[in-house]
């Protein structure tokens, strides 16, 4: 495998597990907003703010469906 180029982390939601509780949008509204049906739309960008990262981790722990995860983004090598 190519060199591990870790360029950052971002919050991802597993839409299959998510049932629309909406806690994540309350805890970290900086990167999560709710759509017309109460489901989260997560900003796909990398998290660069330490405070937002901490809130994201809190949201991950609070989700009753364990639907949130922090993804380690690596740059794609062939």
């Amino acid at each position: 495998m190519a060199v591990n180029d870790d360029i950052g982390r971002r919050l991802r939601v597993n839409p299959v597990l998510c049932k629309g509780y909406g806690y994540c949008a309350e805890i970290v509204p900086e990167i999560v907003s709710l759509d017309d049906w109460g489901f989260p739309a997560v900003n796909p960008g990398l998290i660069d703010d330490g405070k937002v990262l901490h809130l994201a981790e809190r949201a991950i722990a609070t989700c009753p469906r364990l639907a949130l995860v922090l993804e380690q983004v690596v740059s794609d090598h062939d």
Partner: protein
Amino acid sequence: MSGPGRGAGHERLDDHLQRLGTRPAGGAWLVDVLKESGLRGRGGAWFPTWRKWAGVARHSSGHSVVVINASEGEPLSSKDRTLVSLRPHLVLDGAALAADTLGAEQIVLYLSRGVDSARRTLLRALDERRRARLAEPPIRIVMTPHRYIAGESSAVVNRLSGGRAKPKFSLQRSAEKGVKDRPTLVQNAETLAHVGMIGRYGGDWFRNVGTASSPGTTLMTLCGNVQRPGVYEVDLGTRLGSVLEAAGGTVRPAAGALLGGYFGTWLAPTLLRDVTLDVDDLRTAHGASLGCGVLAVLPHGSCGVVEATRIFSYLAAETAGQCGPCVNGLAAISEAMERIAASVGGPADLDRVWRWVDMVRGRGACRHPDGAVGMLASALTVFRDHLEMHLAGQPCNGREVAGLPQPPGPGQWWR
């Protein structure tokens, strides 16, 4: 790929070997040859095949899995079932070459129910290969329900891992962790047929026809308003007009066409002659894709808005039912579009539709919502003028005219 005609049944192994010769043993060299050939996946995504193989090879250690995706959940398409019924050995050769190259110890033929004749043919073909003691891993057939989404990569992997044929969300691609957590290659049957040829004749041979970005031939299913609907092998880079001519032209004047299947793009009637079947060209000039190779032509008098709504409602009913934004979004859009198609909807309904189209893109575990809203967005753009009529409440005859073949009723099973 041409050979004996339809009436002869499937091409027997002996005839296949006599016509094309035995296949070479696959290996890392084949990835380079595929790169030279420029072959792209024929399942709908047109992703460079060599890159897909390289992704699996990177994670493989002798236990990977090769899956021949012949489920063909697209109702308008019949190229894959035709191909596996007439030229099974070419497809299976391609799979065996992939198995050699990727270090796979099993090959799975993923077939959907309701195409029983194909299954019988394939069983006979597999029998022939077994008796001939060909050097390849065991090939088994796994049946799946005939659902639109059953052919989606992660749904294939899910089904083969013992679950239902529903997509799965994962941060890792199936190339890395697929069937039973092994590196898996899910490849369309037609693509593997091309591999079967390229493996024998090389990348340069494949580039003899087609364009620089879209080399080779492709199978297209022509249906709707054409004299001779069916599956045609077409040189890429051809003008759409030539393809229509090969099918005998249209029965009635064309009112437009849907290119690429239910996740495809609508083309205005004026484009039907000169659009070239080139991947890059289609994308940059028309925002379109060849998709799974379906060209469905609308007859004069039918209504693009009505047809698109019908297809969209089918896609909304055929979600896996797993993801909130997709289930809710497609249902909401479908309801609004039904009103618009019946000429009882207004500009407010259309605004909501556009809002929701943006809202559902990328929010599912798979690309089902993206494909559905992409098709609808193209219809709303191409048939803009006619759409205004609907919004103004003017009645439209489109529902009475038989346009494209009716989408099938909703499926029931997931295994």
